């Protein structure tokens, strides 16, 4: 059981590294990736507000918990 888990983890790791190794996007082909609509978070002001509202109404850990902080939201 433990061995198979180890094997699976190894497989996933190898796949990840393999996948990243296979990707070839030359610098001059990155015009679309550099557009603002392709940002991971294109509207940070919105996502900050949304995240605060969701975390005051839902029990999941906050999206923004990586940055910590943020008071109670006790309402």
């Amino acid at each position, binding site marked *: 059981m433990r061995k198979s888990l180890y094997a699976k983890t190894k497989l996933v790791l190898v796949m990840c590294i393999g996948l*990243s190794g296979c990707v070839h996007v030359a610098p001059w082909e990155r015009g679309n990736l550099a557009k603002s609509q392709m940002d991971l978070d*294109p509207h940070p002001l919105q996502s900050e507000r949304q995240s605060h509202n969701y975390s005051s109404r839902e029990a999941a850990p906050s999206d923004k918990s990586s940055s910590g902080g943020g008071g109670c939201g006790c309402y």
Partner: protein
Amino acid sequence: MPQRSGSNLHSRNLEVQSAKPRNTTLQALTSAALVLPGLLITPGHAAGTDRVNFQYSRYQEGERNLYGAPNSLKPISADVLHGSGIFSLTDRTKFSFSYTQDTWSGATQITTSPLVANGNRLYYENTSSGVTVAGASPIINNRILLDRNLNPLRQDPEGGQSLSQDSRSVLVMSYASPETRNQANFGLSREWNEAAFNVGGGFSRERDYKSSYGSLGGRLDFNQKLTTVKLGAGYTDSAVGAILDHDASPYITKNAFSEQIVKRGGSEVLLGDRQDWVANMGLTQVLTKNALVDANIGYTHSNGYLENPYKVMSVIFVDPAALNNNQTTPVIGDMRALLEQRPNIRNQVAINTKYIQYIGAFDAALHLGYRLSVDDWGVNTHTFDASWVQPIASGWTLTPRIRYYSQDAASFYKPYLISQQTYRKIEVDSSGRVIWIDPSNPNEQYFRDSDFNLIDQNGNPVNEDLVNVQPKTSLFDSGKLPDNFSSDYRLAGFGALSGGATLNKMIMKGVALEAGFEYYTHASSMQLGGSGGNSFADFGYYVANAALKLDMEQVNFARPNISNSHQHEDSTKQHHHKIPPAGIMFGHMLDKPGDLMVGYRFMHNWTNGHMMHGGHKVSDQTIVQQGCSDTTPCRFTPDYMNMSMHMLDIMYAPAKWLNVMLMPTFMTMDMNLRELAGRPAPVPGVHEHQGIAGHETGAVGDTYISSLVKLINIPGHRVHMNLGLSAPTGKVDIELRRMAQIDGGLIHFGMQLGSGTWDFTPSLTYAGEKNRWSWGTQLSGVKRMEDKNKSGYRLGDVFQATTWGGYDLTQWLTASVRGAYTLQGAIQRDFDRFNAHIGPMDFPANYGGQFWDIGLGLNARIPGGRFAGNRFGFEWLEPVRSDFNGFQLDRKGALSATWSYLF
């Protein structure tokens, strides 16, 4: 790993070289330029350019289903003001900050109980059309009937005796008066060619919850920035100091937390500490030239006091003797409210994945996200979201978004509990005799003999006239209750669907407006695999927000020589008239048609210390007798009152002689009262100020709209006139919550957020300068243009005359001295609805007066370098003399701070 990435890089370079002959010269040049250090951006992580953002957001919740009881308590709303910025300290080091202030109030769940327990009890009032339902107030202790299977029973109102099962539950709603939270965050980040590191920290302060945090994070790019690995960790320390609701507290069983509750000034304060640790790891991978994927795993460990101090659990105690008496008649349940008990530890793991695809046909991007979180409370969640970022012509971008969320209930969540024991039981000794005690000496035990005569432990008769005995009782056995319980609907199983859109418009180089809207609906039936059993908690909310986003880097690029060339000095010299002290509004004009200036102004005003009458200190006894009215003596007086104003200054020059201005404001007030010495005794049914908590209000204030007209502009001398209006966007009908079955009524005049009337705000300004000296004078006024606002009163008119002189200490720093005289009228008319009239601040005559102040200020204009174009101003206004109308709290001064930037 670094070795591997190095070899990757090496092989990529070889490929680039080998590809060269096949590419055009242009491509080769482009690629060569792009791989120069720092130019190749990391996909998905656009480096934050120097920018400043202002945002206002409003959260408004819908009404809850109270099964026929009126939603007399306004649903929760929150007004949120946010400002943030990023500034480059060096080419690779950036400083970021953000400030958020939210004020919320409204109906909030205190517990859940069976509907038959009448948790939202109606109260009535006499009106001209007879007795009508005026509202509902929370009842958290009650007796209900249960059948032998412990199902709640409803007494049929028609049949009287006939009973039917009613298994419905209902949220019991209480009301929270306005409360403000302030949060500030700071961050410092450093970028290298293929790595970044950041450190951050901040704090959040509200009356009952203080938290501080710090975080570290980093990013490493591999594979020519096609792969990015992110790591982060953070720690938050929080302290809870919750003032328990003065009205509800006597009905709440708090023994599980008795060691954490302290008494302060007549209030019970529940203290708690908690710590949260977070760690996360992520990977961003470019898949093709049009797609990338991002995955993160995060772990959160929390410990300490994780409860919500204002939530109680309804526990229905049933006497087992009555339940097991072999009859079939209903049994009585004794419903009590216990402070909720959550586990002291929580571990959460969340996995976030995001896929972003560029859609060439529309020049748009599709964002798809999925998030899974699991924790040891049993709350497992799934979140799916999708958004479509669509740039439209001429600077518009529209982003519709949809989100679905589902969570399982926490293992200890129950709408209410039933416990087969009595809430309070009579103590007996080992031989079954009832123990009697005298509460004044509880260690001495007494008994009764067969003739009901009182005897002591040795069987000797006791004279009942000398002791005051009662049966000894003890509270329920908490061991028979679950270890943890909560009826907070946020820990129940439910699903939520929300949708909305964000609209962006670039209005000029570096200046963009953003508006967002979202509607959210929470329904128990939408839970994945759920039964929908908690539909009593279903509700919805909407959020609307508007933001102004300023990108200084774009503007600086547009002015290529801003940083270190005298050309810039020449081209913009005409803008550099000396600016008046920070406390002066409408004090200068833009000169060049098409110029836009955006600024932020903060003002804070302190009043505290002695109560004053005219220009003299006054005793409590005099205030009691004269501060209110002949029929109502004063009982309370302000202890302190602080007012803050945040103002956004947007100024535009359509012509050389004309400027137009728009200035939205956001106000926060904060005050506390004290009891007057020698006040009359409380009268039942009359509002009293209870406990140690003060009052806070905050939200959008009035909005100023102005036009500035240049009258004289000769070298060294300028005169301009301002014709402005103030629009009544600030609330004037903020109410205090109902307490002790007495309405709080409208909060004091000074705590309302606006004037409530359309006001005319003219001013005339003269400014002169010669060499290092500058001077000026301004006459200004506020004329209320309506008789009364919607609460029935109007503020007094204002006239101000001020004059100042300034001296340039250096080329970029000016010091100023100013004198100001202000005349303000008393409030006219009065509230046309109920106000408690408990002290001088509730009487219109105790407002306004004549005031003399001296101001000391500094203005800085950054002439060159990285921050060129930013202007800062500070001024402290020190009261010199006051002649108050009526009875008022002494003035302690005012601070003004301004920032502005010319686009």
